[in-house]
């Protein structure tokens, strides 16, 4: 399977295998201890965009690992790293975006009225039960992403849609501190 498979038609099973493999590698290479450090302490429970303040010393290694994972993949794909809100453990929040934003990352946190969303079942499955979960999201946005080179024709999936896999990421204490989402866009 060529790395840049944008113009090719791929079988769903092959794409799933590739995304799962990238996610598996990501579980090992993403430093789960850095996830809790990605925001400066004063910013961890931010409730508006102006209060967001990342700690580059933790954010950048996470980001660079995610970019490497995307390039490792033989299917055009992107990654998103999720965290649980320390002040709202039932909420999942996109923490670091790789080359493209997850379809579930939501808009930028606004200056007023920002509310982290409750975890959707697949995210909860990875965070709370430590499972690998899959999700297919039908969305015209997949076409836009494919237009930008992050997609493939996937036989058996139809489009436009996102095919996503979620895997837990653990820290040195064995706790699940994040969830890595690896996804691709089906044209």
């Amino acid at each position, binding site marked *: 399977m060529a790395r840049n498979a944008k113009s090719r038609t791929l079988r769903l099973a092959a794409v799933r295998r590739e995304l799962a493999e990238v996610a598996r590698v990501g579980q090992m290479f993403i430093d789960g201890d850095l996830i809790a450090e*990605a925001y400066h302490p004063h910013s961890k429970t931010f409730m508006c*965009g*102006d209060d*967001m*303040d*990342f*700690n*580059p010393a933790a*954010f*950048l290694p996470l*980001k*660079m690992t995610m*970019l*490497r994972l995307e*390039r490792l993949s033989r299917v055009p794909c992107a990654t998103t790293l999720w965290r649980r809100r320390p002040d709202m453990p039932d909420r999942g929040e*996109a*923490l*670091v*975006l790789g*080359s*493209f*934003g997850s379809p579930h*990352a939501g808009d*930028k*946190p606004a200056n007023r009225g920002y509310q982290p969303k409750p975890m959707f079942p697949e995210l909860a499955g990875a965070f709370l039960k430590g499972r690998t979960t899959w999700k297919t999201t039908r969305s015209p946005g997949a076409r836009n992403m*494919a*237009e*930008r080179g992050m997609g493939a024709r996937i036989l058996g999936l139809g489009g436009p849609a996102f095919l996503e896999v979620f895997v837990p990421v653990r820290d040195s204490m064995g706790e699940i501190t994040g969830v890595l989402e690896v996804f691709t866009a089906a044209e």
Partner: protein
Amino acid sequence: MSLTVLWCDEFVRLDPCEGAALDGENQAPEAPPVLLTAARGGAVSFQLLVGPLGSGREALVGPGGLSGPDGARIAASQFDVFVEWYHRIDEKWWPDALVPQDLCGGSTPGLRRRMGLPGAARFAGFWVDLHVPADAKPGSYSGSVAVGSGREVVQVPVRVEVAAARVPEKPCLDASFNNYVDSVSAPWPEVKANPRRFWTERYRRIERGAFRCVHDHRAFLHYLPYTHAGYVHGDFAPPLAGEGPRKRVADWSDWDRHFGPYFDGSAFRGTRRGAVPVPRFWMPLNINWPADFLKFGKPGYAAEWRAVGKQMVEHFRRKGWTGTSFDMFPNQKQRFRFVPWDLEEARFLPDQDVHRYFRPIWESSFGPKAARPVRFNYTLGSTWTYHIDIRSDLAEFIDLFIAGTAGPAWYPEELERLHRNGRQVWSCTSSGSIVNPTRAAAFTPLVMWMRGLDGFMPAWCSMVGWGGDVWHDVPGKGSTTFLYPGSELGSEETCPSLRMKVMRNAMQTVDLLDAAARRSGGAAVRGKVSRLLGFRPADWYMKRPAYVDRKLPKDWVGADYATEEPPAVGWQKVPSSGWRALGRLAAGMARGR
């Protein structure tokens, strides 16, 4: 019922049902003759209200030439006629989009139906620009404009006093109509749906239409071509090959074809302002282009910037593109979660260290010594931390600070030093929406010039808000829509707005004031303006609240903001009569060469 034609200037808008004033100071429209004062090389505008129109009747405006002193003439072709499009907002019908009469054939029943006007709308509005040639002989000109509806034709006399003053060709202020790729193709769904649209002539004609429209109004479309992820759209960056010091632009040809005409001015051929290069252009340069962000902080990252930068400078030199400032605008913000900093509008000071990291890379690639005579500018969106940034080492490096409204108005004493060191300062501001009096659009350039700034963004965010149906349901009451897509009329051109015209006219006034200031001193001219409008010179600035110097921006809270005093000046405080007087003052002060 016979056809009546009334006129008014740009500070009054009239509703199409009763012809009643919607703003200004409720001045009624006047009976002809149309009386105008104009400077040479500039445009002067008036509106016509035509009606009552019987059902099924169209209205058309046909300007004639004007006769002046000693047989001088201003040709009929110096007039541009637009049909006013009415927008239903807050239970009223407001004119804003201006449809070139050549495009729609006048105010036809079909066009009024497209607007959704009720049967009670018996009046048609027209906006007329007269472009006075720069070499026109000063003096009184007169002629007429024919207004016809069916078999009726009314000759409307027009008298223009052409002053000796000449509007400078180059505006003294940068007026950046900021916008983001791709915001222009949405009104043409078949264009938008094409993933290869950027490479098509059709897309490029549409884009060029927007650039030309803004250009003709003394401003420029500042069209940011990349996303917060650092993805550069379509062909807005030339293709790259290689890595590290061997990274290079593989092929300039398509990029040159698309954008070169903006830099040599040929894209603007046939406009009223002519084939002048676009003054500023947002480049694809960003944290992820030309260098790979994966290498950020490593030697290869700087090497890729330098290698491509050197090649870019050489290419631009060969092309002779010296009339444009090629701007880098670091726009990524951490709230989008692609990068861990706010590259603009930072609130937390350590974020600014990224620009310090870039400084040696930029200076060796695109700085004045490396790039001369081509001009690249590193710009910084600096709002929360403006007062700190301009007094830090960043002020040795940043070419253009794009501040908020308050920063430069709180620290006027810093401007002279910044200017002396070759720095430029703009403000981002709001220029009102359709339901605000048109004076709001006129006020922006005036206040920026009175504060001594180098330019402005008339609205935060975007000036081309073309999402949704802008003709029938303009978003945000038009506060971010200052131009309209011609798609509604089956055209690929861009239509201006009435507020854009008002802003252009105000910019001409400011340019005349600036010309006078260059001769007799800025303080003297600004003093005259203040006296005329009833302000003290200090009123143009804003009283700096104590918290600004006492606390770091990260610690500012709502209670601090509550201590701010409203500015002493504002469009609300300058009545339309003040604007008319200001126009006369400016033309009188800037005597022709």
